[in-house]
């Protein structure tokens, strides 16, 4: 899957599941500023795991992503790993 496609899918999911305005979903946007709390964070991990059939929980280290851009990279890396 191309990076752009990944970004598109992540943004669509965040907009729908977390009621965020797509125009705010830029790579430098940080989660706290987007209004996401700890409940959303855990929930989001599971939504993305299901969507991309990847395992985020066991690969995540604190600080891996603070911004949306970090999340895009992280998900891309896991998808590549899975397909490798």
């Amino acid at each position, binding site marked *: 899957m191309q990076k752009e496609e990944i970004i598109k899918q992540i943004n669509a999911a965040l907009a*729908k*599941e*977390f*009621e965020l305005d797509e125009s705010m979903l830029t790579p430098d946007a940080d989660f706290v500023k987007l209004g996401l*709390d*700890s*409940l*959303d964070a*855990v*929930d989001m991990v*599971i*939504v993305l*795991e*299901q969507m991309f059939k990847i*395992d985020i*929980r*066991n690969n*995540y280290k604190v600080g891996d992503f603070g911004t949306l851009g970090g999340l895009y990279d992280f998900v891309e890396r896991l998808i590549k790993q899975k397909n490798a």
Partner: protein
Amino acid sequence: MLNYDELIIGGGISGMAASLLSAKRGKKTALLEAGATLSPTLSGFTRAAAHFETGFHYAFGLGEGEIGQYFFDLLGLDIKSYPLLQNGYDEIHLPSGRIVKLAYPRQNLEHSLGEVFPEEKENLKKYLDKLEDCFLNSAYLNLHRDKTLDLNAPVDTPKSLQEVLDECFKSDEIKAVLAASSFLHGTPPNKISFGMHACIAGGLFHGAYGVLGGGKAIVNAFEKALKKAGVDVFLNTKATSIEEDGDKKIIRTNKDSFACDICISSIHPKEFLKIAPQNAYREGYKTRVNALEETPGFFTLYAKYKGPRVEASNIYLLSKTNVVDCFNTNSNNPSYYINFSPDKEQNVSIISFTSPEPAVWNKNSPDYQERKNNYSLRIKNDINKLAPDIAKYLEYIEVSTPATSRRYVGYSGGYGLMHDMYKTKVLPMTKIKGLYLCGQSVLVPGLLGSIITSLMVDKMAEAANV
């Protein structure tokens, strides 16, 4: 309007534990229970001079210095446990007619199963090492790892139980023998994470414990501690709505109304969603929680056992070699879990999985009684065929269906919601400061799991400082 600092909805084990922890922090605490007694789940019942357990058979971690005992001490509970299954075993009856003894603890298991499946000896060792490793390192169960209360703790393996079994073994029968313990948490092997399963099965292989006096004694110990801690308990009091009023939460019930700063719900999460304020969650999350699957409903026959002492503690009569298929609640060919109480009388519960859908077992439907009778009859016939040596000594006393459970605790899935590793987790926090969830459907199942969620919520309540 009655005023409290903190209020807990639901008087099961998790709600009672949360109440004690709240009072321990010096709060004025109320506990509301819809039923006529605390923890109907654990209390069991007495009929024809025989006592039957309804929600507790055994648990792991109750030995000296172990996690369960630590919780009991922390909560100030006087509960006496004793080792069970020390040199005992469970019996798994496979569809092929083969009967396999699952011995405890681990070294016995390895030895006895190794004899039955000699070609799987090496694999068995690897599998049990993995199970034990997961159990000992479980984020939820390890007091020393300081991660017990960490929400983001990994489940220790991204694989399901079924995947790990398929990787480890060639024989489908040994897989069935090892997967049968999924009946104890109610999530099928292809949906439970190996890590979560290891918390339960690994725990049992490590050391299983009974409690002197059974579930009733656990409830009594809680009642005593609640009284001592000064918690006000309101029985027959069902919460019907939770509203926000500034920082306060207003709880309406079938009786009084209550105002509090912190409200902790320990009831079934889908029932909580019905009474929670609209803004407790985002719509997406609500939809995901409402879509979570219920654990199977239990259709249970209770009987006195009048024969020579049965050495096995539990007998699993599997109707399918693939345990995932044993979770089919619409099957015409159900599996059975037979539990013998550990005391002298050896009273028996025979549990089979049935649909938890309220419409399927509904006390108000005109054919309920007839269907219940027919279903019971058919179970008796099955037991006569599948376990004739036991069946001939059974005197049947009582029957319960998922509708019975719904009447007593408000839900009909035997253990509440499934813990499906691929689906949303029910989390202890909400969007509202000071409104939390605990209980068996939140993060970790079972008796100890329920207490762990109460501890998590207690930390949050303390930090919230409303």
